[in-house]
């Protein structure tokens, strides 16, 4: 199972902060997972549409659309950071 995490405005828009997901066989990189989540429709398709400015971290390291993901990974999606 992959552990998905959502933060800040994304967490509020999805009304979810995390979930366990058994990654379908055909998902091996971040962009494919985003497409999969967008297909849930409604607020999910708004949040994960192709032009959304979401950042992604895989196992707590910044990653990108092409980053490889596996079923045991921790994958976090969030908006651009605003600390400091």
């Amino acid at each position, binding site marked *: 199972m992959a552990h998905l995490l959502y*933060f*800040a405005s994304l967490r509020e828009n999805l009304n979810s902060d995390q979930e366990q997901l058994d990654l379908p066989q055909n998902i091996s990189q971040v962009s494919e997972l985003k497409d999969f989540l967008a297909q849930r429709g409604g607020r999910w398709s708004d949040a994960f549409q192709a032009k959304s400015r979401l950042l992604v971290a895989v196992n707590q390291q*910044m990653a990108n659309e092409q980053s490889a993901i596996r079923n045991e990974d921790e994958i976090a999606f969030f*908006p*651009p*950071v*605003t*600390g*400091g």
Partner: protein
Amino acid sequence: MHISVQTEDFDVAGVTRALCEKRTDIGAVVTFSGLVRDRSSVQNLLALELEHYPGMTETALASIAHKAFSEWDIDDLAIIHRVGHLKPADNIVLVVVISAHRKQAFEACEFLMDYLKTKAPFWKKEITVDGESWVEARLSDLKAGERWQDRLSRENKSEK
């Protein structure tokens, strides 16, 4: 090296004292502390709500700190970032860098703040009498982070 993500306030003088304790080789201490303002993108801010990604935040700050150690001749540093509910005039972030010489400490401190703003997973929500809204990332902050990236990669290339 002292890195902390915490809800509690910090004491700037105390953190500096701890870094310099029992050292006689330090000639420069550079401190940046950031406070919550009551006007930024909105007027009349009542409070800020600071969210972060527990685990990744600490790792990201440590990796930014290691980068500073590898690029500048500095002796030690502290990064403290508060999370949770903060009010105007509250401390929010502290970066202290100590070194033999001031130029190294000044530059490293500025780098740490610029990088922290664009690389560490913190998010601010502003609360006003009219409601609440998430702060948008600022282009000027992104540019400041990119400037360091360009400069450091250029310098590393020319050293080779």
